[in-house]
């Protein structure tokens, strides 16, 4: 029971010496070299498959970084009290976005293997009308703009937070609260159009205005599952004792649950309108996914990404226990992969379901790259914003 001031040990804000977490950059780098190396070696067998697998892994870890960036922006925009102790972890996760540009470049080099609109000689009337947005040069220019904006946001929000660890200057927090609103607008626009460019244009005739929101919903599921696991892992490693308590894990679990529901709401809404109107140019996308090869995956997604976790994560006892919250989070990280795979792969495999070794090696490679960056930033600063004006409020936070 915590009442009034509670004594916390400031050393808990640092990773313990000799902790495996300190070697995360190394482990990540090894995984990156191994994963990308093996993928590259397998590439000769099926070059198209390589690029599609790369795109899935790229979209997966982009969503993790973007979800984390949104969580940081949201904390400032809402002047969050409870979440200060996990904000630095989200900032470090978002920092992974900064190296993801390296994973974007190979994608650009394989553009004509992935997107049918790259063949400008064979475009019909509809696609010619979309070429102000699509096209190889625009793909690169937009990509650079997206990454420039995200990198700037990640850097600006994280560096001010780290600077405050030393100075304790409250003006740093106030400035970020002021700019968080405009930054969220910028985030919404860039994430939406990036998902249009990277994923929706796989079926260039098809369009869904809610597609960006769908990708965003999956991203938030991914980041809250990831943060729950990181928090549990760090506590096991002997850090954050007294800072991140069962109350904060409970709240991460609540947000995970909320976005599992939000994801289902958005996913069903998209399906629902297209199913009702039944217009061929819209239904083609679902016909591919409801054909005999992909139908089991679609059903698995509905049950595994919504039905099961909805009932599993509902109880507060589940969210407050490390084991059950960890299991739920790991499951959602897996289901998010199924989701992205389902989003992308029918564009390559058509009506037949396909899963190859390269789907895993690219995940290992890009995941290694992302986690190495996350680990690098994790070791560079304290694990919590040490002198944030709301830190005490966050530490003593309790759920009713």
């Amino acid at each position, binding site marked *: *029971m*915590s009442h009034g001031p509670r004594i916390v040990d400031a050393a808990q804000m640092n990773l313990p010496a000799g902790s495996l977490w300190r070697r995360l950059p190394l482990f990540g780098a090894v995984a990156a070299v191994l994963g990308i190396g093996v993928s590259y070696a397998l590439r000769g067998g099926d070059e198209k498959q390589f690029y599609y697998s790369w795109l899935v892994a790229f979209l997966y870890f982009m969503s993790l970084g973007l979800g984390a960036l949104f969580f940081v922006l949201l904390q400032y925009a809402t002047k969050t009290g409870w979440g200060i102790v996990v904000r630095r972890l989200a900032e470090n996760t978002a920092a992974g976005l900064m190296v993801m540009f390296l994973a974007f470049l190979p994608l650009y080099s394989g553009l004509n293997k992935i997107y049918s609109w790259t063949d400008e000689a064979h475009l019909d009337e509809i696609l010619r009308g979309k070429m102000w947005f699509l096209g190889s040069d625009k793909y690169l220019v937009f990509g650079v703009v997206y990454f420039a904006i995200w990198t700037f946001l990640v850097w600006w929000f994280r560096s001010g937070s780290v600077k405050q660890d030393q100075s304790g200057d409250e003006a740093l927090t106030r400035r970020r609260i002021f700019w968080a609103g405009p930054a969220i607008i910028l985030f919404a626009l860039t994430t939406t159009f990036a998902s249009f460019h990277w994923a929706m244009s796989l079926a260039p005739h098809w369009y869904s205005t809610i597609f960006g929101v769908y990708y965003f919903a999956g991203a938030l599921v991914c980041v809250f599952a990831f943060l729950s696991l990181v928090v549990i892992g760090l506590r096991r490693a002997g850090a954050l004792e007294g800072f991140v308590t069962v109350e904060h894990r409970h709240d991460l679990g609540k947000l995970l649950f909320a976005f599992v529901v939000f994801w289902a709401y958005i996913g*069903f809404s998209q*399906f*629902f309108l297209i*199913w*009702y109107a039944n217009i061929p140019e819209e239904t083609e996308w679902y016909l591919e996914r409801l054909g005999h090869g992909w139908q089991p995956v679609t059903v698995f997604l509905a049950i595994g990404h919504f039905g099961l976790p909805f009932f599993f994560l*509902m*109880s507060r006892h589940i969210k407050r226990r490390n084991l059950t919250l960890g299991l739920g989070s790991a499951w959602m990280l897996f289901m998010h992969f199924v989701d992205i795979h389902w989003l992308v792969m029918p564009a390559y495999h058509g009506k037949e379901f396909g899963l190859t070794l390269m789907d895993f090696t690219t995940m290992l490679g890009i995941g290694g790259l992302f986690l190495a960056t996350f680990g690098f930033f994790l070791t560079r600063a304290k694990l919590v914003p040490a002198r944030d004006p709301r830190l005490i409020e966050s530490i003593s936070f309790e759920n009713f």
Partner: protein
Amino acid sequence: MGLPLPMVPRLPAGKSYGLLARFEDAASIYRACEKVRDAGYTKWDSHTPFAVHGLDRAMGLQASRLPWVVLLAGLSGATGGMLLQYWVAVHAYPLVISGKPLFSWPAFVPVTFELGVLFAAAAAVFGMFAFNQLPMLFHPLFSSRNFEAATDDGFFISIESWDPKYDEAETSTLLREAGALEVEVVDNE
């Protein structure tokens, strides 16, 4: 006893309702609640002008049964919503709409969802009423003039006379030892 009648609170029978003790502030009532809890009392309550964090644990309150009621109501609302639409669309008044099968379940999802939410929300509100024996138009504690401070600056513990451990003299001593400013016997009139 039978089923509780609405608006007739179930309260201790007999002349005396129980004891009412006033405390200085949030911290002292918190410690007093822990003492009453540890003494093994079960039929008692605390009354504060604002929510005192953690008081539920100091009182040793069990988790509410309300979530189970809400879950059951939500599930039956959703199930009922889907079944109702199925019955209407397939049996009672079959109509082919835009060439779709009679049982076009996606079309029924919004209503199913809404009914689930409606039933769950209604169960949460009215279930809370039921567990709290609300609406209750009169309560014996209202006969105490002191108790009027409960909505202003008074912190109170009331122990009801039908508690198995209740003994007017002993319980009164316990409350005083726990730091009560004053203890009074409240009649059941």
